[in-house]
């Protein structure tokens, strides 16, 4: 069973995504802020991380920096899932090593799972 870490501070969104992923037979880990997100990522070494940008304590870009600079987890694919879609944010995310960048309101849960499966292949 593949393990996915969701770092998302909006509870409704986090729960909806977690429920859908559980139904799709993934094991889900959750963090509601950036700091906790990095902690769990290092401790649990998930197969994939879904990361929001606007987060308390540490924002998504800081989290991405810390993941990519940690030898043990730097190869873990990170999907940025956010509602920001400025060109600067997208460019910054890819420069920092994000695997994919998705805009929440544009994606159905079904399509997010497709992207996760594509990334995990």
């Amino acid at each position, binding site marked *: 069973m593949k393990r996915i870490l969701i770092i998302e501070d909006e509870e409704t969104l986090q729960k*909806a*995504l977690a429920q*859908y992923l559980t139904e799709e037979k993934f094991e889900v880990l959750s963090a509601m802020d950036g700091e906790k997100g990095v902690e769990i990522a290092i401790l649990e070494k998930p197969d994939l991380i879904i990361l929001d940008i606007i987060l308390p304590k540490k924002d998504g870009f800081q989290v991405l920096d810390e993941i990519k600079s940690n030898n043990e987890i730097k190869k873990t694919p990170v999907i940025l899932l956010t*509602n*920001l879609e400025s060109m600067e944010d997208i460019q910054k995310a890819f420069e920092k090593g994000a695997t994919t960048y998705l*805009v*929440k*309101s544009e994606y*159905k849960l*079904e399509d997010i799972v497709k992207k996760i499966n594509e990334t995990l292949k």
Partner: protein
Amino acid sequence: MEFCKNKLKLKLDFVNDFDLEKQARDLGIKIWQTPSFLFIVFGVTAVIIMLATYFISKNYESPEVLVIAECLVVVVVFIVEMLVNKFIVQLTRLNKMKSEFVSIASHQLRTPLSAIKWETELLLTKFKKGLDKKQLKNIENIYSINQRMIRLVNDLLDVARIDQNRLILIKQKVDFLKIVEEVMEEIIPKAKLRNIEIEIDTKKELPMVVGDKEKVQIVVENLFDNAVKYTNSGGKIRVKISKNKQYLEFEIKDNGVGIPEEQIGRVFEKFFRSDNATRYQTEGTGLGLYIAKNIVEQLGGKIWFKSIENVGSVFSFSLPISR
């Protein structure tokens, strides 16, 4: 002939520039605050300076006149300068507020909309056990109304970006036919509900075009949406994609309500909806064609149309073929 037309247009533009009342109305400010009014004040000040110089040079033996005249000129220039400064600060602040609004709207409005989208999707797919047909239909309605809201927010954000010249398009090779087919897949069920037939005429092999996939999709969606929205039940929509020199052309023809002749010139204006369109269909913001025009032109293409009221419309656009 063309030269005469341009000359006449220039002249009209010049006259319009000094229509202070119109300018004040357009910019939402008072007449004395309009740039043209301030321009006139500057002009008058310059004339006064010239007259004063002339007058003083003729009567240079009276230094008190020189002092008074210079004081007056300095005061006028100073006041005008202050006003101009104040308006520049005001405009910059407004522009900044608009940019901030775009980023706040993009995050704060979309977050609850995404939550509704995902929760309803969960109910419709993973947790539908125990729900009867009627309840599922209700949830489907919530889902599609929410999609409309997401679309509206996206449209408003796109318009704000266009107005600030910040609509960034990623120019890449795009499979145009695939985009049209994907949009048709979504739109055909909606058209069927209203008993509208959609036909497509195209070759299977078409060259790639220069575009931004998501934005080109918005253009195609907007044109399809309009055609379906403004065509009567039992109507027909015909789509044609063809190659024309260095461009790929898309044409969508309907036998819908059409556009009244006197309003044809305003079709691509922001928030414009023709009188018969608002009578026929209350839903719509008047932003779709404005956004479509900006996207197509920014990608190096053109958009145009023909329409006759109560007969129908043909909307077309072209995109450059990728080399």
